[in-house]
């Protein structure tokens, strides 16, 4: 065992019990987590490992840059579209293509729809079961549940005792038949669950409502992008021509009827965010008022590239302005420049990749993706690793750093930056939420202790979903106004032909992806992709240690978190899920027994 302090201020103690969770479930992709737990069941060391290699950078070499979006979009089917958007931005940046206003607004609407869809699905279908106990919901009194609903979300129409009784009956049927379905493999008798039966029933009910509604939200993508998941994108604009009086034939899928359909979906998103999602997060958070841990790097150092300008190509109009905050100093917001070779760099000395000199980081334009899998110092065998060695290489995730600093990305980072930079809408949302939390919990806490926690990460995501649904209304109005003014252009094809391109060029595209700041860097030579690097949000958050020994956001959020039962790591999952980890998507295999391959091992 050893005790060390990292340069970014975390005390790591490798003594005590080692707990291994592999894979971490209800995330996108493959992830493993190992922690050390002391005699008081408090986490003193954490090792986060991405256990799959994406390799898309290799696939893209030598291809037509106009096709890159279609490949990178397949990195993930959940945050669908955000890689495509980032890719077309990078290519347009390299070739100096400016897109028309309609294309800008339509892309904005697709990006914000994705935020709402992704955040809602994450909270209800991937994260809620860390807070909500469906088995406990069977003990609820439907009348009291109805009262709770009317207290927390009075505008939501589904609030009668009969409605909750009906849902409860259906859940009971399941649980009593021994088929827990989606609620299988939970630790349902663990005291880490704090909700009352009524709050559990309300949340499970909304789990089902959200599942029904999410399929409506994504129809915005089908209107503008032709399909979902993986809607279509286009270098130079959007692939949906406008003919307001048309009948959608002759290749113009966008008319007034379709735009009204989009508006109806936006109104649904807004109503669900205002009346269900935000009230649920606040109600659930108030039951966990004593568990405000897990802030980690989010309580110190955060980063985002900035997003949602009201005027395209004018970063000063970003409605969620970017920047970097270090060491919790909200008075000093620094600039992040994705072009500056000293700002964003990726390190690999603890990652299964090879650099000529691994003491140094590489800017993505000069990035290298060469695998180098080595577990010779881990305990166990090559195919059955018992314990990784965090002093050696231990992850397929690289370690990106801003000027050498480890930072957290995601909705909480964006909200911290927006709040610190005085965005009024965000400040009002935060103040209202803090007041509601305090009223429900009977506490008197300020914004920081609530936001800088696992709960706060989850709350910031909900607030961002709400903000996006409001911005969607503005975008929709702007699109209608622009079309009414006579502009129906949706693409700028002046530089479509590679003969118009420079012999060599490079570009960068950045996006506020659901899980945090996303960047793609491209080099084009002789009309082909020479180098392509994606630095995705989970690369930042899930990064292993860097040469200086700084730990990343996943690891940092676990240090100091107490666990009720080491063999049932609800708290670890709750902290990690609050980031909505996305290690790219994979495939499925079925087994007769319906057993998950997840296992928590205590050593």
């Amino acid at each position, binding site marked *: 065992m050893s005790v060390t302090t990292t340069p970014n201020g975390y005390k790591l103690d490798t003594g005590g019990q080692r707990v291994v969770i592999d894979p971490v479930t209800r995330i996108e992709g493959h992830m493993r987590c190992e922690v050390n737990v002391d005699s008081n069941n408090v986490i003193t060391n954490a090792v986060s490992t991405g256990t799959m290699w994406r390799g898309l950078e290799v696939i893209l070499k030598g291809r037509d840059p106009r096709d890159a979006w279609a490949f990178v979009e397949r990195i993930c089917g959940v945050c669908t579209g955000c890689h495509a958007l980032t890719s077309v931005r990078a290519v347009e940046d390299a070739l100096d293509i400016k897109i028309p206003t309609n294309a800008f607004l339509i892309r904005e609407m697709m990006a914000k729809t994705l935020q709402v869809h992704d955040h809602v699905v994450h909270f209800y279908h991937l994260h809620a079961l860390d807070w909500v106990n469906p088995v406990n919901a069977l003990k609820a009194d439907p009348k009291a549940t109805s009262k709770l609903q009317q207290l927390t979300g009075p505008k939501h129409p589904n609030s009668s005792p009969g409605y909750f009784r009906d849902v409860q009956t259906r859940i009971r049927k*399941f649980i009593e038949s021994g088929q827990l379905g989606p609620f299988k493999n939970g630790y349902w008798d663990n005291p880490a669950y704090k909700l009352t039966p009524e709050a559990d029933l309300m949340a499970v009910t909304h789990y089902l409502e959200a599942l029904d509604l999410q399929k409506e939200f994504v129809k915005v993508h089908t209107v503008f992008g032709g399909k979902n998941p993986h809607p279509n994108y286009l270098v130079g604009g959007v692939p949906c021509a406008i003919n307001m009086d048309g009948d959608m034939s002759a290749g113009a899928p966008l008319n007034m009827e379709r735009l009204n359909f989009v508006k109806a979906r936006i109104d649904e998103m807004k109503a669900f965010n205002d009346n269900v999602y935000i009230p649920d997060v606040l109600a659930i958070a108030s039951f966990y008022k004593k568990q405000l841990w897990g802030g980690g790097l989010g309580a110190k150092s955060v980063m985002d590239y900035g997003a949602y300008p009201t005027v395209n190509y004018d970063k000063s109009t970003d409605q969620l302005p970017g920047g970097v905050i270090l060491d919790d100093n909200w008075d000093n917001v620094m600039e992040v420049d994705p072009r500056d070779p000293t700002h964003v760099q990726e390190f690999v000395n603890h990652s299964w990749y090879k650099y000529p000199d691994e003491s140094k980081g590489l800017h993505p334009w000069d990035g290298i993706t060469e695998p180098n899998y080595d577990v010779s110092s881990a305990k166990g065998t090559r*195919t059955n690793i018992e314990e990784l060695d965090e002093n050696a290489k231990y992850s397929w995730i690289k370690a990106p750093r801003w000027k050498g600093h480890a930072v957290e990305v995601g909705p909480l980072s964006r909200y911290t930056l927006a709040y610190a930079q005085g965005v009024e809408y965000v400040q009002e949302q935060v103040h209202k939420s803090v007041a509601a939390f305090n009223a429900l919990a009977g506490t008197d806490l300020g914004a920081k202790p609530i936001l800088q926690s696992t709960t706060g990460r989850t709350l910031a995501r909900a607030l961002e979903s709400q903000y996006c649904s409001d911005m969607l209304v503005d975008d929709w109005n702007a699109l209608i106004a622009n079309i009414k003014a006579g502009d129906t252009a949706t693409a700028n094809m002046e530089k479509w032909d590679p003969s118009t391109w420079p012999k060599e060029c490079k570009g960068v595209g950045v996006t506020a992806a659901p899980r945090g700041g996303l960047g793609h860097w491209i080099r084009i030579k002789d009309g082909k992709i020479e180098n392509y690097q994606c630095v995705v949000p989970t690369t930042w958050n899930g990064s292993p240690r860097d040469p200086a020994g700084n730990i990343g956001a996943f690891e940092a959020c676990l240090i100091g978190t107490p666990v009720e039962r080491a063999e049932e790591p609800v708290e670890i999952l709750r902290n990690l899920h609050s980031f909505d980890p996305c290690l790219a998507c994979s495939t499925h295999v*079925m*087994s007769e027994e319906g057993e998950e*391959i997840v296992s928590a091992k205590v050593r």
Partner: protein
Amino acid sequence: MNKKVLVLGIGNILWADEGFGVRTLEALQSHYEFPDNVTLLDGGTQGVYLVQDVRDADILIVFDAIDYGLEPGMMKIITNEDVPKFMGAKKVSLHQTGFQEVLALADMMGDYPEQIILIGVQPEYIEDFGGSLRPVVKAQIQPAIDEALKFMDANSIQYNKRDAPIVPSDVSEDAILTMDKYEQGRPSEEEACRMGDDRILTSEAFQVTTPELAKVGDSPMQVEVDHHLEKYR
């Protein structure tokens, strides 16, 4: 009133025998046409997003590769209330939401199909990226279709054999995911990794071995899917 019928093929065509459900569905569509109340759906790896389609169906027919622990290539048919317990999943991500969950959610949302038939085949090999169905599994495409048609006959579900099967070139010149083009366009093992990542295969359920590649000439990977359906021509 015509009952709404959903015929669903699920699985991942990029993972060898895991593609059985989808390939069977493609073959069914290629050779048969159906009235409006019957929907054929390539469910791929959509997982939980299939709930809506399942909720809309009165009768559900599913093709899938299922690990029953039987001999590779054996077909097993499960119906109605027995289906969920055979459809557990090793869920690792949202996409991997087991079909059991999809059924559970449909039920909890108050819309469960009246009848379900699961036509499953035991996979032989899965961890072969870009590989096709193994011969024993591919040979079950036709019998699986026969079982589905038998079930349709018993339940008065209409279908007609097409005069001529739809061939991939009728659909799109660029339909690279159709089975024959997909198989013929496969890069060599030297060019593209075919093995699963051994770090994610730490479960004892997996045996990590190099996939056996068929010899050129008698390769099942060069057999066009329609050859299995010769008798319908």
